[in-house]
């Protein structure tokens, strides 16, 4: 078994894209589109997601939500993607994409609904209307994303598809098959690997023999790029470039965002069983939110008062979403039968009648759901 060469992956590599380093210093000129407002907006979003994430874990621990996959420490990956995507691009997530989805109009309430076990969380509106729902089986979303890209290209629509996958997912067939197709058919597909170093308990070094995940692009004949996944500017920049390239018909890109999973895999996991606490505290040193905060402070674009105000604001937003989630009326008992086919067939209608006889219809509440 390979030794955990975690530091190897997180060392600053010459070809890894970075703008704001782990100490909060800009190491190169920021892109034109990244102005102070952009940075404050990104910062705000990461803080919001972290607050939601913390609350969601707490809800699970108190039995008010089912298993939840925290994105703690990975907020920059999702935020960078969401800031780079255009409205008409299409997002095909895996299951740890809260940050991107919420930038595309999926509500905090819907995030809670999905992990609370309520399919209504998948009824996206607005910008996310054509986005796919999150995907539990590992890597399947990659093939779906390739299909969506085929659809866009077929219709001559000059937009692109972004899909995400974890480091563990890159071992699965769908990953290779989809990238291969993207290469040979030159699909407008941007794939972002959230390399948070862990596939449940399996460290990145045990997942594959390659030095990076980005280099797997070579096998597909497409461009591969590695970025510092804790630098929201770097993620944004790489995705934005890749999207532009894709929309121009110049093909697909594989982006590896190197980050660290500061939380357990999900609330059902206990990471202390397989990783050292010291490694985790070390990773906290270069987490994404703190480093951007440092930069904003240092460049006089932030202060403690604004910080407090922001924290209160996001907490309110989260609390409102939680209240809505906790108070929502349950679905009708036959809702899970009504969407199996477009129209219920005879047998299912009989079964529905049986079910309703047993459970009856709920009283409609004021929310009308």
């Amino acid at each position, binding site marked *: 078994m390979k030794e955990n060469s975690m530091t190897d992956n997180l060392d600053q590599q010459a070809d890894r894209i970075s703008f704001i380093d782990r100490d909060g210093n800009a190491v190169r000129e920021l892109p034109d589109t990244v102005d102070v407002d952009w940075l404050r907006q990104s910062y705000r979003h990461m803080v919001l997601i972290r607050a939601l994430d913390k609350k969601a874990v707490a809800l699970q621990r108190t039995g008010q939500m089912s298993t939840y996959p925290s994105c703690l420490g990975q907020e920059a990956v999702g935020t960078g993607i969401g800031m780079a995507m255009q409205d008409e691009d299409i997002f095909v997530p895996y299951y740890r994409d809260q940050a991107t989805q919420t930038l595309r109009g999926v509500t905090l309430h819907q995030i809670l609904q999905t992990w609370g076990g309520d399919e209504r969380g*998948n009824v996206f509106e607005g910008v996310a209307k*054509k986005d796919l729902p999150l995907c539990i089986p590992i890597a*399947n979303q990659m093939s*779906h994303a390739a299909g969506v890209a085929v659809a*866009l290209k*077929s219709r001559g629509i000059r937009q692109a598809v972004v899909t995400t996958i974890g480091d563990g997912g890159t071992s699965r067939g769908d990953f290779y098959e989809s990238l*291969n197709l993207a290469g040979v058919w030159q699909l407008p597909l941007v794939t972002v690997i959230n390399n948070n170093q862990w596939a449940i308990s399996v460290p990145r070094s045990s997942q594959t023999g390659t030095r990076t995940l980005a280099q797997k692009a070579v096998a597909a004949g497409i461009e591969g790029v590695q970025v510092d996944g804790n630098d929201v500017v770097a993620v944004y920049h790489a995705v934005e470039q890749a999207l532009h390239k894709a929309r121009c018909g110049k093909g697909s890109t594989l982006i590896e965002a190197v980050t660290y999973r500061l939380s357990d895999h999900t609330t059902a996991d206990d990471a202390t069983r397989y990783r050292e606490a010291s490694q985790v505290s070390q990773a906290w040193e270069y987490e994404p939110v703190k480093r951007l905060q440092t930069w904003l402070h240092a460049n006089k674009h932030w202060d403690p008062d604004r910080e407090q105000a922001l924290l209160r604001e996001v907490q309110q937003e989260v609390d409102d979403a939680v209240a809505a989630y906790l108070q929502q009326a349950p679905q009708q008992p036959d809702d899970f039968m009504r969407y199996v086919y477009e129209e219920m*067939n005879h047998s299912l209608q009989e079964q529905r009648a049986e079910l309703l006889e047993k459970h009856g219809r709920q009283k409609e509440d004021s929310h009308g759901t």
Partner: protein
Amino acid sequence: MALKEEKSSDKHAKSKIEPAGSTHVVTLVEAVNLALRRAMRDSPEVIILGEDVGLNGGVFRATEGLKAEFGYKRVLDTPLAESLIAGISVGMATQGMRPVAEIQFMGFIYAAVEHILCHAARMRNRTRGRLSCPMVIRAPFGGGIHAPEHHSESTEAMFAHIPGLRVVIPSSPTRAYGLLLSAIQDPDPVLFLEPKRIYRMVRQQVEDDGQGLPLDTCFTLRQGQDITLVSWGAMVHETLLAAKQLASEGIEAEVIDVATISPLDMETIIQSVEKTGRCVIIQEAARSGGIGSEISARISEEALLYLQAPVRRVTGWDTPMPYPKNEHLYMPSVEDIIDAVRTTLEGV
């Protein structure tokens, strides 16, 4: 646009492109071709994809001439990856396209099961109707052509067990045309299994009128009052032969082609059993856990009081299909069907 434009000559993909709406004398596989052509002419969202479907016209020629008529953007020769074929079909379908994917043989569909079961069949339910999956997967299935291992599968029952998926099996050129058109127009995913043994067995006159036949409905092929024979796919052929022979002995069998094996139209079958009081189900698939078992259970639930004898099944054995030398020991025959009918008529 480079969805891999083929540079090599298309001479093998030539077809006689005929005007729409004419009548054709066709075999079952030619009827499939006719339906695909009609669907592609009528709906620009219909895209064909699969291995060898474009330039080669499909290994059974089911997609012959389509690439020549519709071009490389609508008839896609994919890399060799069944899971991917099903997966991208899901993605395309969620965006409003109507992909008609071919899996070259049912024996190679198993890599695609994850996408069919986990996603195609669940996308509408998962998103409460926001997204849906109007895709068709076509696959030649069934044995009797002396092919190597894995080319003679009849595992339709596996797929019938998946809620959210339809499984449709034609048994004649006319019905292949009509059912495939309906499958392509259906808003939900359909697995369209084509019994390859009878691909070229029979020729029928088919009107290319774009009219689909209803899904979720059985077809009564022959009326009779003595016994109900239920079958689907290639076995319908043997069942009709058995009925003809029985008629010469004064036994009139009612023959029902199930066609859509999931969701089942039990009403037609029950109605017939109430009339005849006897039923034999004929399936090429293995005995245990097949569609015959489901139909038998439902008859027992809904028409027990009308039965004069137990419901019998004529089936393959609970084994993989033997290699070609012993294939004949596996496939149910006309004699097997007649024996089962006689036993049933002897009473309880």
